[in-house]
């Protein structure tokens, strides 16, 4: 009985630690910079996410973020700007993946080769680093330490570059992402667009690493877009929803993390996952209803057989002797 009571108190303590709103107003002022950076990051992640999915690059995002982590750790070790370090790491990784990996299979093996190398390099740099240990852990799992002013300037500038670039190449990039062969035939510079996109992706990852940490970048660059795609395929609504979900996840995560003094990433990833879960449930129901109203459900097996018999019948004309 006493045991149960004490364990209940423990749970209560943990909960009050995880969700604490003491001095909330004062704390919000302190993290104002983080909130601005977070909202901007949400916009970047939400905007680039649908392309990451249509171009089949979620694994690349993870690979780039590990190289970004390596860059940031080395920067921390040698005492230069951490944002610069993570930028160099992620842009290099993005370019390598973009140049060498044209086909998905080839690309995935390149990423799988780069990723552990980057992670190992990062761990080495952190092991040699003598400074505050919170800085180390923060690079992998995100940091609550408020973003300082020069860092905020960096994040703002990089985010703006990504947002403007994506808006400029939006239509050709959409065409090239969905149907590279047809787009290339129409004279769209598919290859150049692919490199521009990888650069933008590298920049986005570098910014995300600052907030949620290298291990959790996917929760901002992929999860919100995946959630939006469960609800709609409208090419205007998808990025808008995806941005909304990402902003809610980051800003919500920062606010919830305030009281407990814990890293923000678990909050961000949980909100982002919860949104995806709801969208998946709602989207599943909508899809079922949609296919009924369209009246074009896949034919039952019987009629499929019939169709294939007709199509296989009188087609082939010739046989090489």
């Amino acid at each position, binding site marked *: 009985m006493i045991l149960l009571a004490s364990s209940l108190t423990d749970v209560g303590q943990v909960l009050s630690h995880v969700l604490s709103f003491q001095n909330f107003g004062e704390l919000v002022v302190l993290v104002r910079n983080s909130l601005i950076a977070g909202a901007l990051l949400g916009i970047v992640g939400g905007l680039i996410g649908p392309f990451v999915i249509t171009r089949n690059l979620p694994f690349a995002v993870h690979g780039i973020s590990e190289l970004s982590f390596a860059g940031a750790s080395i920067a921390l070790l040698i005492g230069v700007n951490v944002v610069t370090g993570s930028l160099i790491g992620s842009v290099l990784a993005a370019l390598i993946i973009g140049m060498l990996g044209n086909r998905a299979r080839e690309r995935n093996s390149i990423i799988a080769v780069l990723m552990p190398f980057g992670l190992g390099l990062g761990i080495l740099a952190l092991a040699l680093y003598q400074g505050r240990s919170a800085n180390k852990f923060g690079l992998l799992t995100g940091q609550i330490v408020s973003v300082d002013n020069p860092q905020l300037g960096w994040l703002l500038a990089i985010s703006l570059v990504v947002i403007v670039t994506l808006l400029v190449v939006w239509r050709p990039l959409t065409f090239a992402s969905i149907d590279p062969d047809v787009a290339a*035939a129409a004279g769209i510079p598919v290859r150049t667009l692919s490199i521009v996109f990888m650069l933008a992706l590298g920049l986005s990852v570098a910014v995300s690493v600052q907030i949620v940490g290298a291990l959790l970048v996917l929760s901002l660059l992929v999860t919100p877009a995946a959630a939006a795609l469960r609800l709609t*395929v409208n090419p205007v609504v998808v990025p808008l929803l995806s941005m909304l979900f990402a902003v809610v996840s980051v800003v919500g995560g920062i606010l919830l993390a305030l009281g407990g003094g814990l890293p923000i990433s678990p909050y961000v990833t949980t909100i982002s996952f919860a949104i995806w879960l709801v969208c998946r449930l709602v989207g599943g129901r909508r899809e079922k209803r949609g296919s009924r109203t369209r009246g074009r459900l896949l034919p039952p097996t019987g009629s499929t057989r019939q169709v294939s018999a007709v199509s296989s019948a*009188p087609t082939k004309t010739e046989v090489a002797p």
Partner: protein
Amino acid sequence: MTSRESEAVHPTPVVLRMRGAGMRFGDRQLWSGLDLEVRAGEFVAILGPNGAGKTTLLKAILGQQELSEGSIEFLDQPVRRGHRKIGYIPQQRLMDAGTPLRTRDMISLGALGHRFGLRRASRAERRRIDDLVDEVGASAFATAPVASLSGGEQQRARVGQALAAQPALLLCDEPLISLDLKHQRGVTELIDQQRRSLGAAVVFVTHDVNPILDVVDRVLYIAGGRFTIGTPDEVLQAPVLSELYGTPVDVVRTLGRIVIVGSTQAAEAHGDGQHHTHPEHDPEGPVR
């Protein structure tokens, strides 16, 4: 074959011109000495067995594969990597679930996909895309996700997308493959109507001439490193193809279809299906 008759009176411009074009990979000569002029409004089929170099020829026209000899000009310019005035219709390949496009969006990419920036389509452009959605018979599924389309619906959308660019040349790479008869006919009719109304040249790669027999003007038949060009009636003859293949080949016209049979082996699996043919599905019958 009205386009050929009118051609004699009012020569239409040459859209695609190949001079002495040849393609070889190492020792293997796919074809060489290829001279071909395709005029606006003309429908040319490229036929031949697998591996004859049909797709390579398409890639050469798209500037994705360099010729080993000769030249290709599109609209009097040497070909480069793709062109705004080329509409490309690939083989049917179902779109991934979750592709963030509806049918109308996919068609509009053909008209707007090359445009940088976020400027909205003008009212005239939007109306033209709407008309195109109607013309290719996609109105019923215009707002459906492209991933939910059937093979035939998707190919209609692709034809619409290719036409949206108001192309001078429609390049079709086996666009009818894996479609059933009804959709093969539908998509063929669509391409035929549109090349007439738009005056676009059509270069149509296929391993099966039957679905397009009624609309094709000329045939380029490639086999065994050689080729022959002419009307379907001129080319699809036993002596002509025997000469081309270098072994006896028979051309059988049966149940309104043409079957080409090699002497050394029986017809391939697909050819065996002749007894399934329903002539009522094909009222126009063969060309002759």
